[in-house]
């Protein structure tokens, strides 16, 4: 299964780059992530709880950052075992491109699933993976961007608290 897309993030390329290497950001952005520890050099250990169709499982796995070319590109590789649910693994080639004050993040994801996930979830796995990727990059975008002025009033307080938290942290 392959996914190719890009996002424009309202943050400069160096901010985006350092966010990608930050365990706290990754934890916040990976949907269902319970734990994320480690460093870009040694890789990250992660625990993710996810439900794919009828299969719910706790995936324990490792995320490695390879082919690092700061601040322009890297490969994020992850593999998780979900016990009886099977396994999931994938690699994302990420390229960053400065665009004025913003950064365009290109990603090219290849993902594989095995075991019960493949047996029960094959017909829904593509949609699931796309949803996961969308959610990851949306959260990533939110972590980096300033809150928009025209933000809806509803939940505005909470949203403001979340939005741009990483940027505030590093600026």
């Amino acid at each position, binding site marked *: 299964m392959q996914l190719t897309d890009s996002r424009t993030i309202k943050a400069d390329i160096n901010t985006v780059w350092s966010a990608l290497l930050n365990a706290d950001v990754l934890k916040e952005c990976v949907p269902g992530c319970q734990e994320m520890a480690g460093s870009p050099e040694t890789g990250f250990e992660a625990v993710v709880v996810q439900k794919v169709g009828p299969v719910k499982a706790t995936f324990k796995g490792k995320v490695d950052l390879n082919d690092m070319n700061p601040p322009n590109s890297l490969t994020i590789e992850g593999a998780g075992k979900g*016990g*009886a649910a099977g396994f999931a693994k994938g690699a994302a080639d990420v390229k960053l491109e400065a665009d004025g004050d913003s950064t365009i993040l290109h990603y090219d994801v290849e993902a594989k699933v*095995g*075991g019960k996930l*493949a*047996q*029960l979830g094959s017909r829904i796995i593509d949609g699931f993976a796309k949803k996961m990727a969308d959610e990851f990059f949306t959260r990533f975008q939110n972590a980096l961007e300033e809150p928009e002025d025209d933000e809806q009033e509803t939940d505005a307080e909470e949203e403001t608290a979340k939005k741009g938290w990483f940027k505030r942290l590093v600026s």
Partner: protein
Amino acid sequence: MPKDGGIGASSKRREDLRFLTGKGKYTDDINLQGQAYAYFIRSDVAHGTINSIDTSAAEKMPGVEQIFTAKDFEGVGGVPCGWQVTDRHGEVMQEPKHPVLAEGKVRHVGDPIAVVVADSLAEARDAAEAVEIDITELEPVLNMKDALKDGATKVHDDLTSNLCYDWGFVEENREAVDEAIKGAHHVTTLELKNNRLVANPMEPRVAVAEFDSSTEEYTLYTTSQNPHVIRLLMGAFVLGIPEHRLRVVAPDVGGGFGAKIYHYAEEAFCTFAAKQVGRPVKWTSSRSEAFMSDAHGRDHVTKIELAMDKDGHFLALRTDTHANMGAYLSTFAPSIPTWLHGTLMAGNYKTPLIYVNVKAVFTNTVPVDAYRGAGRPEATFQLERVVDKAAREMGIDPIEIRRRNFITEFPYATPVAVEYDTGDYHATMDKLLEMSDHAGFDKRAEESKKNGKLRGFGIAHYIEACGIAPSNLVGQLGARAGLYESATVRVNATGSISVMTGSHSHGQGHETSFAQVVADMIGIDEQQIDIVHGDTSKTPMGMGTYGSRSIAVGGSAMVRATEKIIAKAKKIAAHLMEASEGDIELKDGAFTVAGTDKSVAWGDVTLAAYVPHNYPLEEIEPGLEETAFYDPANFTYPSGAYGCEVEVDPETGKVTVLGFSAADDFGNIINPMIVEGQVHGGLAQGIGQALVENCAYDENGQLLSGSYMDYTMPRADDLPMFNVDHSSITPCTHNPLGVKGCGEAGAIGSPPALVSAVVDALQRAGHDVTHIDMPLTPDRVWAAMNS
């Protein structure tokens, strides 16, 4: 007038009372005192090297008795294969070891790696989560043709390649066939796939085993079609347990369809582990496990060429088939694409020259073995499809081209080494055309057209080799067992009878039909006869039920044993009536002296046998119990004509089966209602294969159709009301009942009829479609119409 008892009567299935009221006793209903539960940890990758298995954390989990890996099976044999095929160069097939638990490598998704035995299934599953298994994935071998290329990744490192065998049949005909094809007026070529199927019996596999340390005896309860075969294979080849210390029981079994013939690792595991842990061990397959551990069926890729003269007479036939063996050789696997497939390539036709080439290939998939029909559906499908295509290319009616080539004289020796004893193919064809109102088809097609639908009619004529099999013949062909059958007829003192048969009933209704045969021979009520099967401690050594063999081989053994009973009973009756043995006649359950009014009832004779106060003790022994083993002289050759009428929705490609007619020649019929039921079941599975069923793997060797969400089973609304007839009878000439067998026919004849019907519908509407691979799902049909 229909009979109300005995041979030819539609006696109601006595076993249905318990099945339909939930009182059947299946293996999973057996729970032994103190039993532990086994949970298998299976590979979730198709191909990989096992680096380590760490069970230390799991062993400390609550309720865990023991965790087993391949290390525990070092002194134990592999799961054996029961057939050795010799290839076209005179070499025996490549035969890899099939360990009970994976040794060093995993070779398919579902390959068992370790087993947790615990107090409860929940605890076993929890502990399994804590077993750490490190596997390095290897490139999976999936495509059969790629698997045979030089330098291809090997499924088994210790074999020279992924080729199990390269079989040529009949090798001596090869050049003559090539020549005939070269010089022929017309050659029709067809490339096709016979889709991989999962058998899906309603009851998944189960094994419960115990070891009695006081007597050193093992008992295995298992879902098997042939408990004696399991005892022999597991006892002699895997665990080294002599037969007298091993009892195998297959109680009520909820469907087999071939998948429960084979000896599986889980049975050996439970039997082995029961002794190791000192308590009974039970394993019940989940449906998910069944998909990835029950042997699959079919999976052939074939190119077939049919050469004809200008009048459509068949001159020569050549086939080139790749047959998927999966990762290991299941019990009968090598024989399916060879001796149960190549030998049937003549079909119903007098094609003088035939050459069949089969390359059996190892891949990283679940092992493939017999599934209802076993090799014969694959043969029939390709032959009937190429004949249909040839008719259309030659501009000859598909019925006429078949008639022009039918074998009409019997016995007939085919160029593929079998001799058909009887048959009348024109008769079954005539019957089919009448049943299916073929004459009215054009009118119905017009109606469909008015409704915006495309109507088509497809025909198939099949032959099968059943009643397997003559032991001396199969021995020459590589079988490592004989294929006789046995029966013990035990007449009790009051005249009731227990028949212990080596056949096994798992839906076939033997308890009813076998009783009808014995009742008919003696002239007593069927209710006096009980059929005992499925327990090695009760029944004589028998080879079980598959290949439509039970009535032809098992029934014949029962007839022979009953003949011995009657002969002895006549001696006793002669003594009781002070008459000459030669004058004694048995009719309607009474012995009479010919030409007199002297008579003695069946019950008086049987009582005398067990209370021998007035008895010829100096001439014969007391008691009335006889055993017979029957080894058939030939296969039996059921045949039939099948017709399928479909409507295709041109907007969606959806196929609706409007009518299905089956005119079979099964030889003599014991119970017409049971025969009809067998044909119905076969048709449902054949139509299932042709229309909806498909076992799919992705490019990584992951099983995609691993549940009923993705593996479609045929449902009642996919099927029409069946029109079934078996009044065209040419009795088998070499067994005492004149029977041929009916269990697989429906699944053999129906797929080509359905595919040809769809092709017919599309061609009538002007689409240039000559073949669509099964299953004919709407997307495939639509794509074919719009390509």
